[in-house]
């Protein structure tokens, strides 16, 4: 062996390492006798590749795994140690890893503990429910071993095995109990963790075990912290009054170990039934930590206080001074949490000073944390509406300082929220924003602000002061901003009569703009203003687009691509349902995370995940040959949930209406990680079999864990006899258990079914929301109809009544009649829609009044249409 003396000149072993080359070098494993150093180097190289992120195919992994098994012959300990590690890393990638079980069980009998500890870790990784019973004595033996290395390895392995074969691991409970008495702190900790997990689903057993352990002599910090968590769990789940659990937590509060004391304090703050005295002592422990030199301890304390401030702000007030000193902490996560906590416990008298204080340190905080602060300040606007001036000025400072678009967008959103919540803040906010757009580097923000100025400016006491700022944009900015400014100017002309003449002059100056869009808009608005066509201007400038913009964009693209311009584009044909299928499971998870993180959740997490634009239903359905003869998709319903979100299988449904067919799209999610479902379909039984005819059903072939896929059922109906009925639904499928060691399903499986909720097809499914420009005129034109009167039982306020009417009828509110005047006890709602099949216009007027008891809402509903049949159907839905 030649070893170079000069290290600096030697070639680095791992630089430019190539996977293919290393795989070749594995032949060293086959040489006899084994060269420990050579093989060690090859294994090291594999480990390096893995840590660098290289991936291996199943074939490669299997070859490497099998080659490495040759090294079981070697007695060289360092080599064996590396070999075990390599086998462990590759055991999940390789096929037939089970082959090494006999070699490993031989290692289990080796007198050296190193052999046994490592062998058991691999055994745990490659075993499955079928093999485990044959080798479970090795686990039992190891768990009770005195040697802490082996015992810990066995216990930690068993924690993982519990997910694979819970039944078998549960049989080791006596051994685990014994291991709790092991002298090693870590063994004790692992044993307690495993014991708790084994008994987890048996409340009584957990209660008993925990109360025994509490009385015992558990001394290691990790074990104590774990026991505190268990005690909290028992208290929360059983509502026990037994003082033993509370006493234990309280005694831990006085522990010299920070981890234990913190865990106790955190638990007391989180428990609902903690007494005032207990909370006071917990808070004083945390207060102590706030002054610690360790960042992690400070962070833990302030994080817990932040959470407590949400439910019990008064309890946190004693820490005020300590937390104020943390505003300048160099660990910004601590500073940000301190700020948000202080804002939560702030009161009318100190909030002003607090905001000033925070503003001074803003420059030291990076944008991610500023967003958190901005959100906390926005919340203040609800608590202290009188302080709006300081809030707006504070937010405006952030808006003007250097920052990313993301930060500025959040800040602008915050200002808009404040303006919406506190009308008095409008003028000061608009003035500040006018200043801001004079020097704004983000066109997106300028456009939004110009929109706001046009919307709110004309309604203020001095509309004229804003127009100069807006017109400056026309003179100085890019096309997109100039176009927005033209809109804004035109709104002043429309909404504030005294300025109309001036607006006409200003718009006239825009007629020669070099940008087509700007010229077009100016010309259009100028003409309409000169003609005094308020109705058209209102429609163009003030009314919101009545459909989601994404859908409008798609429909327009579709219309243009079709190339058939014989018919004008119909806004009514744009779906009002936002077509996306967020996974209910993922949603649930993410919301949980938000609540845990105690306020520090970056915006980017949620915004980025929404990037994937949903493919439209009609495109998707058109790709399915069975449905190709159904014609044009007329309407897709909203998503109807047919299960709870936390069940084994989550199913929801979308109804697609065609001229003579209905396609039910069932979106199914399999939430069981040990099952694979095959041939998944829904059996539907109609309550009125005569009105529908079964057409076809398209099952899901394979539904893996955590996947969303759709199966379909199609029925046929006659347009003159709408199939208004309920369907009883059953999910049918073949289920196969997944073998956790291989990830493959077993061969057989069995058929199973799962009841899901009923689904209703009602008249609203055959009505399209539509928009009429002058509802009252149109309503007067249609033939008179007798009104129907009825009561909405236990609808106690008009807002709910409006919502219920809109959702039952599936029609669009007109004339902004969906907003109820606050505190009034009667309301008129105007709705418009049209028949899917005939296109006949339907208008409905609902006069609503709270009845004398105040518990129900009386409704007088008048439905008008040229289609008498439809009127009857609509009235029958109440």
């Amino acid at each position: 062996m030649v070893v170079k003396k000069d290290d600096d000149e030697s070639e680095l072993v791992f630089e430019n390492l190539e996977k293919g080359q290393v795989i070749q070098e594995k032949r060293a494993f086959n040489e006899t006798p084994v060269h420990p150093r050579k093989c060690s180097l090859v294994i090291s190289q594999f480990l390096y590749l893995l840590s660098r992120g290289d991936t291996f195919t199943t074939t490669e992994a299997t070859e490497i795994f099998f080659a490495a098994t040759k090294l079981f012959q070697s007695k060289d300990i360092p080599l064996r140690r590396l070999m075990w590690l390599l086998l462990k890393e590759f055991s999940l990638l390789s096929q037939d890893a089970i082959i090494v079980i006999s070699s490993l069980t031989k290692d289990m009998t080796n007198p050296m503990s190193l052999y046994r500890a490592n062998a058991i870790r691999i055994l745990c990784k490659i075993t499955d429910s079928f093999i485990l019973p044959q080798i479970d004595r090795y686990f039992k033996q190891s768990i009770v071993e005195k040697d802490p290395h082996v015992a810990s390895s066995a216990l930690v392995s068993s924690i993982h095995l519990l997910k694979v074969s819970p039944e078998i691991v549960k049989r080791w409970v006596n051994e685990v109990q014994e291991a709790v008495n092991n002298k090693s702190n870590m063994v004790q900790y692992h044993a307690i963790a495993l014991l708790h997990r084994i008994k987890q689903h048996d409340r009584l057993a957990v209660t008993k075990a925990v109360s025994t352990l509490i009385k015992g002599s558990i001394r290691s910090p990790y074990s104590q912290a774990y026991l505190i968590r268990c005690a909290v769990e028992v208290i929360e789940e059983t509502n026990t009054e037994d003082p033993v659990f509370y006493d234990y937590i309280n005694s831990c509060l006085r522990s010299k170990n920070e981890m234990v004391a913190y865990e106790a304090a955190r638990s007391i703050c989180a428990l609902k039934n903690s007494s005032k005295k207990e909370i006071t002592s917990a808070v004083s422990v945390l207060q102590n930590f706030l002054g610690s030199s360790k960042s992690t301890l400070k962070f833990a304390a302030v994080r817990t206080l932040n959470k407590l401030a949400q439910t019990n702000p008064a309890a946190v007030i004693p820490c005020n001074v300590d937390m104020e000193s943390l505003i300048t902490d160099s660990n910004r996560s601590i500073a940000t949490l301190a700020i948000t906590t202080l804002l939560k416990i702030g009161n009318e008298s100190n909030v002003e000073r607090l905001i000033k204080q925070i503003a001074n340190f803003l420059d030291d905080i990076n944008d991610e944390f500023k967003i958190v602060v901005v959100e906390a300040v926005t919340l203040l606007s609800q608590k202290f509406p009188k302080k709006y001036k300081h809030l707006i000025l504070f937010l405006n400072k952030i808006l003007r300082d250097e920052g990313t678009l993301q930060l500025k967008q959040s800040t602008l959103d915050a200002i808009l929220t404040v303006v919406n919540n506190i009308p008095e803040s409008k003028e000061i906010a608009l003035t500040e924003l006018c200043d801001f757009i004079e020097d704004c580097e983000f066109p997106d923000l300028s456009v939004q602000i110009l929109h706001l100025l046009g919307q709110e400016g004309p309604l203020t006491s001095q509309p004229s002061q804003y127009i100069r700022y807006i017109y400056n944009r026309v003179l100085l900015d890019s096309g997109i901003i100039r176009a927005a400014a033209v809109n804004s100017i035109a709104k002043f002309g429309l909404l504030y009569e005294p300025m109309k003449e001036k607006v006409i002059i200003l718009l006239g100056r825009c007629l020669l703009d070099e940008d087509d869009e700007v010229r077009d808009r100016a010309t259009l608005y100028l003409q309409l203003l000169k003609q005094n066509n308020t109705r058209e201007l209102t429609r163009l400038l003030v009314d919101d687009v009545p459909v989601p913009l994404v859908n409008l964009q798609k429909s327009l693209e579709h219309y243009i691509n079709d190339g058939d311009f014989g018919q004008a584009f119909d806004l009514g044909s744009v779906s009002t349902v936002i077509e996306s299928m967020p996974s209910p499971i993922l949603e649930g998870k993410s919301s949980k995370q938000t609540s845990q993180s105690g306020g520090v959740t970056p915006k980017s997490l949620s915004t980025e995940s929404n990037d994937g634009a949903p493919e439209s239903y009609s495109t998707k359905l058109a790709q399915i040959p069975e449905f190709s003869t159904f014609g044009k998709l007329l309407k897709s319903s909203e998503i109807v949930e047919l299960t709870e979100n936390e069940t084994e299988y989550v199913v929801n449904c979308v109804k697609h209406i065609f001229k003579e067919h209905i396609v039910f799209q069932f979106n199914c999610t399999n939430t069981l990680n040990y099952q694979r479902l095959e041939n998944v379909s829904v059996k539907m039984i109609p309550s009125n079999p005569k009105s529908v005819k079964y057409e076809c059903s398209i099952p899901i072939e394979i539904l893996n864990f955590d996947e969303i896929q759709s199966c379909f059922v199609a029925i046929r109906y006659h347009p003159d006899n709408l199939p208004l009925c309920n369907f009883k639904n059953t999910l049918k499928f073949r289920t196969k258990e997944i073998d956790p060691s291989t990830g493959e399903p077993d061969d057989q499986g069995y058929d199973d079914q799962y009841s899901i909720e009923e689904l209703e097809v009602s008249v609203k499914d055959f009505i399209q929301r539509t928009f009429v420009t002058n509802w009252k005129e149109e309503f007067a034109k249609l033939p008179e109809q007798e009104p129907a009167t009825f009561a909405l039982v236990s609808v106690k306020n008009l807002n709910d009544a409006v919502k219920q009417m809109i959702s039952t009828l599936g029609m669009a509110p007109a004339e902004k009649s969906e907003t109820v005047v606050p505190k009034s006890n009667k309301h008129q709602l105007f709705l418009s829609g049209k028949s899917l099949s005939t296109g006949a216009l339907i208008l409905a007027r609902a006069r609503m009044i709270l009845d004398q008891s105040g518990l129900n809402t009386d409704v007088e509903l008048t439905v008008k249409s040229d289609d008498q049949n439809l009127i009857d159907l609509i009235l029958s839905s109440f």
Partner: protein
Amino acid sequence: MINTILITNWNGNILFSKYYNSITEEKQIEFEKLLYQFTKDEWLNSKGEKHLVTEFGGSVTVYTNVGDLLLFVSGSDEYDELALSDILIPITDSIKDMCKKKGVTETHYIEQIPKFVLYLDEIIQRGQLDQVQFEIVSNYSSLKHDQPLKKESL
């Protein structure tokens, strides 16, 4: 569980990463990006093995500096900031121990990654804390070839 261990240089280039929570590569990149944004400005403050902390997306990350390296450990549930800080100690000690001859430099660390993997294997088992005392960890990993392996030596 303990979700992730990342080791980077001062430029933020990742030298070692281990995801115990087996999230998709996309999520890993997203996590790394956020981690960078949340901590970058404070890296200098972690000199002298000072443990700093940040929190986002439902997990807490404790990080520190040793030699030319930055170490990040993130976890959730029972592995809170205090536990993670505790776990970071044997990890730091392992790196110092295996690089003790030439100091903790980037190149020297890379040479020793296989040995580091061995140490780490004793500290964390699939996201669960196994051993937290460095002496025990170092005993268990017992790898006797402690000079770096060289190509030429074969």
